C-alpha cells in the first residue's frame, strides 16, 4: 500500500506552508532593460546618418538636421501646440470609441442573436481605411476638430468592439456559474463578474486600438486643420524642401506612440487584471 501519513492525520488540521513562487521576490533595478534599447537606438541613428551621407542625397535629412528642425519648432512655439492638438484629437476620438465600443462589444459577445445581427456589418466596415472616410468627414463635420476626431473614432471603435466581443466569448464559464450560485443576476452579475473577468482582454484591445488611433492621426489631419503633428508633416511639403520637418514630425509621433503604449502596459500591472496576462520574464 502506498505510504500514508500516520493514522491520526485525517481529522487534524495544520496551517498550510506557504509555497511562494520565487518570481515575486523583490527585483533589483535592471539597468540592462534601459541600456539595451538605447544602444539599439544609437546604432540606428548611426546607420541613418551614414546611409544619407553615402547616398549623396541632399533631400533626405540626417539625424542632426532633424534635431535642428525640432529646435526650430520649439523656438517658434509650435512644437507644444502641435503635440497638444494631435493629443487632443486622439484623446477624444479614442475616448468616444472606448465609451461606445466596449459596452457594445460586450453586449454582442454575450447575446448570440445580437452578434449574429451586427457582426457582418462590423466586418464590412472594419477594413475600410480612415483615409477613405475623409471626404465623408469633411461633408458631415466641415473643416474643424470634429472631422479628425471622427476619423480617429472610426479607426479605434472596430478593434475595441471586436476585442470586447472576444473577451466575453473567451471568458471561463465557471465564473458565471459561481457568481450565479451566489445569487448574482442581471446588472450586478455583469458589473461584478462578467466585466471584471473580461477586463484583461479588453485592456489588450484598448492598447492595440490606441496604437491604431495614434497611427491614423496623420491621415486624420490631412483635412485642412491648421495644427497637429500630422498637419506638420503634410504641410512641410508645401514649404519647399523641409523634409527635416517631415521626419521630425514622424519622430515625434513615434516617440509619443511609445509613451502611450508604455502607459497602457502599466495598466496591466494592476492586481485586478494582472492575472489575465501570461507571465512574461
Amino acid at each position: 500500500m502506498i505510504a500514508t501519513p500516520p493514522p491520526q492525520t485525517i481529522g487534524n488540521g495544520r496551517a498550510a506552508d506557504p509555497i511562494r513562487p520565487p518570481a515575486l521576490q523583490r527585483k533589483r533595478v535592471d539597468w540592462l532593460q534601459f541600456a539595451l534599447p538605447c544602444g539599439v537606438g544609437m546604432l540606428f541613428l548611426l546607420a541613418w546618418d551614414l546611409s544619407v551621407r553615402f547616398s549623396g542625397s541632399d533631400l533626405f535629412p540626417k539625424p542632426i538636421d532633424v534635431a535642428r528642425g525640432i529646435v526650430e519648432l520649439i523656438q517658434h512655439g509650435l512644437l507644444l501646440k502641435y503635440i497638444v492638438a494631435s493629443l487632443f484629437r486622439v484623446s477624444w476620438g479614442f475616448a468616444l470609441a472606448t465609451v461606445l465600443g466596449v459596452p457594445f462589444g460586450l453586449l454582442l459577445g454575450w447575446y448570440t442573436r445580437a452578434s449574429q445581427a451586427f457582426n457582418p456589418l462590423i466586418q464590412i466596415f472594419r477594413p475600410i481605411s480612415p483615409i477613405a472616410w475623409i471626404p465623408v468627414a469633411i461633408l458631415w463635420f466641415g473643416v474643424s476638430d470634429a472631422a479628425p476626431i471622427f476619423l480617429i473614432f472610426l479607426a479605434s471603435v472596430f478593434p475595441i468592439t471586436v476585442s470586447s466581443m472576444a473577451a466575453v466569448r473567451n471568458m471561463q464559464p465557471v465564473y458565471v456559474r459561481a457568481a450565479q450560485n451566489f445569487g448574482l443576476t442581471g446588472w450586478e452579475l455583469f458589473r461584478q463578474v462578467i466585466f471584471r473577468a473580461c477586463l484583461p482582454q479588453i485592456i489588450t484591445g484598448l492598447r492595440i486600438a490606441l496604437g491604431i488611433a495614434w497611427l491614423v492621426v496623420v491621415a486624420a489631419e490631412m483635412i485642412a486643420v491648421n495644427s497637429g503633428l500630422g498637419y506638420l508633416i503634410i504641410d512641410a511639403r508645401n514649404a519647399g524642401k523641409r523634409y527635416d520637418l517631415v521626419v521630425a514630425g514622424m519622430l515625434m509621433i513615434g516617440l509619443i506612440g511609445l509613451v502611450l503604449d508604455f502607459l497602457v502596459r502599466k495598466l496591466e500591472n494592476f492586481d485586478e487584471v494582472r492575472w489575465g496576462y501570461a507571465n512574461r520574464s
Partner: protein
Amino acid sequence: MNPADDSAAVVLRNLWMAFPGKQTAVHVLEDVNARIVRGEFVCIVGPSGCGKSTLLNIIGGFLRATAGQVLVEGSLVAGPDPRRIFVFQENGVFPWLNVSENIGFGLRRTASAEKERIVRHYTEMVGLTGFESAYPAELSGGMRQRVEIARALAANPDIIYMDEPFGALDFITRLKMRADLVRIWERERKTVLFVTHDIEEAVQLADRVLIMSRRPATIQEVIEINLPRPRDLDSPGYLEKRDRIFASMGMSLGVG
C-alpha cells in the same frame, strides 16, 4: 418518500438525463433515486464518464433534468441558489479579487463589521491567515481550493456540493486537504455532497457512499461507512469498506 420529510435535505426522484447526440440521444442518467439526510457527508463515486458531474450539476441547478425531480429542503430545484454552494474542481475562485474579497463574496448584503468578522473566522479555519491580500495567481492550487471552501462556508449555505475539488492537486496536498476538510466539517456539520472518482477518498471522508453504475448511470449501491473519525487507514474496518466498494464496481485490488 414523503416530500415533507424534514430530515431529508436532498431528495432525488426518478431522475433521467439525456443529451442530444449526433444520431441518437446520449442517455447519461437513468432513474436515479436517492435521499440525503441533513448534516450528512455523502460521497458519490463511479467510473469516469458515468455522469457524476452531470448529476451534481443537476442537483446544483445548473442543468435541468430531462425527467424527474430534485427537491432540496422540500422545494423543487429551479436554478442555482446561494443556500446551496458549489465548490468547483478548478478556477472557481475569482482571480480579480484577493483572498479576503473572495471569501467575503457571498456576504455582499452583510454589514461590513460583521462581514469582516466572518471572513476572518473562515480565513483562519482554512489556515490562510497572513494571505488576506494575496491574489489567487500567487497561491498554490491547494491554497486556492482552501479559498473556495472558505468562500462556500462563509456564505453559510445549507448544503455544499463539491465536484472533485481535490482532483487537480498532487497526492500529498490531497491528503492534507482531506484532513482539513474533515476537521472543518466536524465544526460546522453542513450537508456535503462530494463527487469523486477516488474510492479511497470516498471512504476516508464520507458517512455514506453512493456508487454509480456505468452510463446510463443509476445508483447501483449505497454503502454506509460507520467508522469513527479521524479514520485509521490501516484498520480492518476501513479496508473492508473499501474492498466492498471496489467489488461493487467490478474491480479487484491487484494492479496489472
